[in-house]
């Protein structure tokens, strides 16, 4: 069914016939601002399809205009059978009609029935239209009745494509079976399928464990008992063997025999030892005799030899003594010759010295004179020098220069004073020169005379003229000072005036010159001083007046000869002394040799004397006898040794016999307490009935294992059943929702590429959105998401309907209130995708947002031709 046109008359604000026409296949959009009648259109459509024309309920009543009247709605639909016009009016003259091409097909109740069939098809139920109202975010929104109707519709639809949900998922019976299964399983296991504490499974496990442990312990104890029994058996057998009388007797006999054999062997060994000592004694005796004989013979030989050598030594000694004497005489002679030569030499030396002194004395007389002259001159020079030095008084050049400077300064001071002082110039008339006097001093004429102070000039013949200089004039203190200084300098050198000073300076320079000359003379005569000259003079011997002084050359020759003679004599003497010494050594050596030889002889004779009266023959006999005794003793010992029993063997046999006996004793001592211990242990273990308890535990363990196996099997069975039931239910559910899920999936993926929905068995609606493995209940999602899902689900159901051959229009009344513009684009894609084989009518006030939707634009406008009444 597809809607082609809708006409309203007397419906709320539409008091004139108003309608929408040319509703196309696919997407149709009626975009009007609010309060322009969209919702009215929507409600009117619902009323037409779902409200019987006889209804007067409040929903129908709400359709009436304020002014009142009978609301009338007609819809033109196209079905497989053709195009029909459905019309209804309520309240006054209510009717319901179905027309086809103007011809009445049905009216009143028949028309209602016709409409019912149109909506529900043969499956029954009002599923022909899929409504989505403004802001209907909730999938199950609406009145209870609406909800039930929608659920019924979904159920019908699902059942028509699949089976009853109850039948599919097993419903309550499945729940009961699962609950029963889990209940039984919970007795044994935890939710993780581990044995539950205090549960039968855990108890059975614990019991098996406990019994296993007990069984192991008992088995170990039993094993110990068996071992103890075996050990006791061995110990008893060993003890019996050891303590058997015949065994003990055998051991004892063996020990006795070994002891006897050992004692005999020891005795024999002692005898052999005694024989050995005898042999040793005999050997010593024989050796002693032999050596006595030998030494006697040696001594005889020694004495003879020593005697002969003593004789020879005496001869040699005498010869040496003679030679010594001879040489001593030779030496004495050489001594005397030497002494003579020495005397001669001394005489020659004295003569030569004498000669030399005489010559020197002669040579010294000239030099003395010369030296004495020089000394005299030098004395003179020194005396001159001293005189000059004494004359060297008066100012030296420096002092003189200073005095001259002082004199110049004085003159300057006088000139200066005179220049400022009152001057008088006397010009004498001829002949009266000197008539004016200053005191006694005539005043010179023709030249100015300064008068530094008041001066009374006596003018001869006239009187006195007192000249007084001005008060503020000069003073002559500087002149006095300069004069003072000059005076003092002159006084220092004892000069009267400057001239005297100059003369003194010249005298001083003269004296200095003379001193220098004398000094140079002295230096040339006595460079080292006069004393040195005097010493040199003293060194020159004064001539000895010896007339018989020999000639020096002759004396020298004599001396040379005397010295050669002396040297020869000395050499001869030394040679003689050496020779004498050699001979003395030889003589004493001969003496010493002789003395030692005499000792030897004396010793040999002493030895012989000590041997007393024994003769060589007697000694030889004695040695022979001793040797024979030795041989005999040796033979005896060898015989004894040959017949000796094996002592080491006897010792070993004895040791063994003793150790056997000792071991037997030790073993008996060990076995007895061991047996007692074993007896005790066995008595205890067997008293505890260990085998009996072991057997019992073994049986209990087997039973416990069987019980555990039964429980494990039970758990396995229950687990398997639970898995089978769970798997089957999930599988059934998936199979049930598979058709709608298949339709929904591509739509859903337009918005959320990897999302999925799970379905509630009761509501037959999605209950959870699965994104990235997260299960989110639908009712906690955002409003936008909820309304998007609601819309998509309806589109999917619509598509399912279409697929089952019942095309139904989807009417969306401002269905996307909460959806943002981005999502809306994708929702538009979804709508277009679905619109291909569906009819979708979108009512919206969001003009701007829905401009992009596209599709057929619808307009509400007045219609002229009302539907056939």
């Amino acid at each position, binding site marked *: 069914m597809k809607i082609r046109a809708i006409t309203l008359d007397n419906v709320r604000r539409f008091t004139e016939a108003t309608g929408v026409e040319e509703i196309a296949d696919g997407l149709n959009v009626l975009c009007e601002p609010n309060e322009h009648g969209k919702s009215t259109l929507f409600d009117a459509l619902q009323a037409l399809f779902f409200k019987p024309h006889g209804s007067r309920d409040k929903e129908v009543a709400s359709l009436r205009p304020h002014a009142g009247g009978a609301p009338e709605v007609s819809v033109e639909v196209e079905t497989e059978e053709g195009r029909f016009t459905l019309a209804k009016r309520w309240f006054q003259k209510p009717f319901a009609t179905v027309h086809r091409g103007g011809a009445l097909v049905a009216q009143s109740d028949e028309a209602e029935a016709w409409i019912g069939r149109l909506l529900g098809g043969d499956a029954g139920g009002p599923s022909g239209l899929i409504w989505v109202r403004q802001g209907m975010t909730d999938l199950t929104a609406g009145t209870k009745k609406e909800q039930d109707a929608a659920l019924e519709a979904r159920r019908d639809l699902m059942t028509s494509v699949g089976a009853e949900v109850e039948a599919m998922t097993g419903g309550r019976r*499945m729940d009961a079976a699962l609950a029963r*299964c889990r209940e039984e399983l919970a007795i044994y296991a935890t939710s993780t399928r581990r044995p539950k504490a205090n549960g039968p499974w855990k108890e059975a496990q614990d019991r098996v464990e406990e019994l296993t442990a007990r069984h192991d312990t008992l088995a170990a104890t039993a094993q110990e008992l068996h071992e103890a029994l075996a050990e006791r058996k061995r110990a008893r057998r060993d003890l019996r063997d050891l303590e058997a009388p015949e065994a003990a007797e055998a051991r004892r006999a063996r020990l006795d025999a070994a002891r006897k054999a050992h004692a005999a062997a020891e005795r024999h060994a002692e005898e052999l030892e005694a024989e050995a000592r005898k042999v040793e004694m005999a050997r010593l005796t024989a050796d002693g005799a032999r050596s006595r004989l030998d030494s006697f013979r040696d001594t005889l030989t020694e004495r003879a030899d020593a005697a002969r050598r003593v004789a020879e030594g005496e001869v040699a000694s005498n010869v040496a003594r003679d030679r010594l004497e001879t040489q001593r005489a030779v030496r004495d002679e050489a001594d005397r010759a030497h002494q003579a030569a020495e005397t001669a030499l001394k005489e020659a030396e004295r003569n030569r010295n004498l000669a030399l002194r005489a010559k020197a004395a002669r040579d010294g007389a000239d030099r003395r004179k010369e030296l004495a002259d020089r000394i005299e001159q030098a004395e003179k020079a020194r005396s001159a020098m001293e005189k000059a030095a004494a004359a060297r008084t008066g100012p030296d050049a420096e002092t003189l220069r200073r005095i001259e400077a002082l004199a110049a300064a004085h003159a300057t001071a006088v000139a200066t004073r005179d220049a400022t002082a009152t001057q008088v110039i006397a010009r004498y008339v001829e002949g009266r020169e000197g008539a004016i006097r200053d005191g006694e001093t005539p005043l010179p004429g023709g030249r100015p005379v300064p008068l530094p102070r008041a001066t009374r000039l006596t003018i001869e013949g006239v009187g006195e003229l007192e000249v007084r200089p001005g008060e503020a004039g000069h003073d002559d203190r500087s002149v006095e000072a300069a004069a003072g200084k000059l005076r003092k300098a002159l006084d220092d050198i004892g000069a009267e005036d400057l001239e005297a000073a100059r003369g003194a300076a010249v005298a001083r320079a003269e004296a200095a010159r003379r001193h220098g000359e004398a000094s140079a003379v002295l230096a040339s005569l006595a460079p080292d001083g006069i004393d040195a000259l005097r010493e040199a003079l003293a060194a020159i011997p004064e001539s000895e007046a010896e007339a018989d002084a020999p000639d020096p050359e002759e004396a020298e020759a004599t001396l040379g000869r005397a010295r050669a003679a002396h040297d020869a004599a000395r050499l001869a003497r030394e040679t003689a002394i050496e020779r004498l010494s050699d001979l003395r050594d030889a003589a004493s050596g001969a003496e010493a040799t002789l003395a030692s030889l005499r000792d030897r002889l004396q010793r040999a004779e002493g030895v012989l004397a000590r041997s007393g009266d024994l003769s060589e023959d007697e000694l030889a006999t004695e040695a022979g006898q001793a040797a024979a005794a030795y041989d005999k003793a040796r033979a005896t010992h060898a015989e004894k040794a040959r017949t000796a029993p094996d002592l080491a063997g006897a010792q070993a046999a004895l040791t063994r016999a003793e150790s056997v006996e000792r071991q037997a004793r030790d073993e008996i001592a060990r076995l007895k307490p061991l047996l007692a211990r074993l007896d005790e242990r066995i008595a205890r273990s067997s008293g505890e009935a260990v085998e009996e308890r072991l057997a019992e535990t073994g*049986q209990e363990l087997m039973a416990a294992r069987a019980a555990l196996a039964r429980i494990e*099997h039970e758990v*396995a069975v229950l687990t*398997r*059943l639970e898995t089978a039931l769970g798997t089957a239910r999930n599988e059934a559910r998936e199979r049930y929702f598979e058709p709608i899920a298949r339709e929904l999936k591509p739509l859903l993926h337009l918005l959320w590429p990897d999302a999925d929905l799970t379905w509630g068995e009761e509501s037959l609606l999605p209950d959870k959105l699965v994104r990235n493995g997260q299960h989110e209940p639908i009712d906690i999602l955002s409003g936008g998401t909820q309304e998007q899902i609601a819309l998509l689900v309806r589109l999917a159901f619509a598509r399912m309907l279409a697929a089952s051959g019942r095309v139904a229009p989807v009417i969306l009344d401002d269905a996307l209130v909460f959806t943002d513009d981005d999502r809306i684009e994708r929702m538009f894609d979804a709508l277009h995708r679905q619109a291909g084989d569906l009819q979708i009518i979108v009512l919206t006030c969001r003009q701007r947002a829905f401009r992009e939707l596209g599709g057929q634009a619808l307009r509400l406008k007045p219609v002229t031709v009302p539907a056939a009444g």
Partner: protein
Amino acid sequence: MSVRFIHASDLHIGRKFANIPQPQDGNIRGRLMEARHGAIGRLAATARARAAAHVLLAGDSFDTATPSPVVIRQALAAMGEARDVTWWLLPGNHDNLREAEPLWEEIARDAPGNVVALTDAEPREMGGSAVLLPCPVAFRSGASDPTEPLVTMASGEGMLRIGLAHGGVTDFTDSGASIAPDRDRSAGLDYLALGDWHGRMAVSDRVHYSGTPEQDRFKHGRRGACLCVAIDGPGALPQVEEVETGIFLWSETELPLHPRQDAAAALDAILPGAGRRDVLLRVAATGWAGLPDQVDLHSAAERHAPEFAHFELVTEGLGTHYEAADLDEIDRGGALRLAANALVTEAEAATLSEAERQVAADALARLYAYVREAAK
């Protein structure tokens, strides 16, 4: 020149039966133990009734090598009370000479005068004209025929030679330790009394296993017995009489089932009508049964079990026959049926192990039980 004696073996006094499950307030283990001890008195009574002066116990008189003092003393006391009977006790493998040395020492030391411990392989005069030739077991498991010494064991001229030994005649373990079945001929025996086999078995005219006087296992299917043996003289064939002495009957019964059979009724049919208190019964169901029949069988077993000394239903050998109707009873479709189908497939899958198949089959049976339970 004739002799008459009781031949018994394997009393296993002191056996605890800890492997028999005992209900919280039950005492089956105690009763079983008591019955073993009581066998002594019943043997003595049998001997008295048959005018036999000797009871030959061919080994394993005690269950373990070291029984508790209570067990030993009470057993010896019970034997001592039967003064007119001489008890000849041979060490068997359970009470062998090596491990049970203290036990035999204690018997030799403390036993009453009419109890003889045969701890040496030496001929013993039984009084009259018979010589007893014992072959005590030295080790728990030997490696030779314990009756070998009988060949060379001497007895007086004209005396009856009665061998007493413990061990198997069939060499199960290939250890060479089995008793030669013709030992009576090779050792010139008039009679060879054997123990170890808990069931009665006549090996030949002169070689017999008496079996235990009180059974302790499901193997033999009849009550325990002893033999009363009478020999008229050397060379004469022994006259052997079986005398039942057992109190408890250990019975293992097969219950063959087939589909669509009333399994509960089939079980009822094989159960004994009387004396159930002294019967230990193991019913091994075999063949095939549908799911409802199995449920019925189990509930019938639960109903009957308390009447018996011990009751066990073994269903390992019972296959489950899956019928569409039974599966329909679980559900005709939907998830429950899906689960049931998966379990059926698994229970019949040849690629899975027996254990896994069993788990699947039992899981299915359980599901069936749940559904039935819920439907009530």
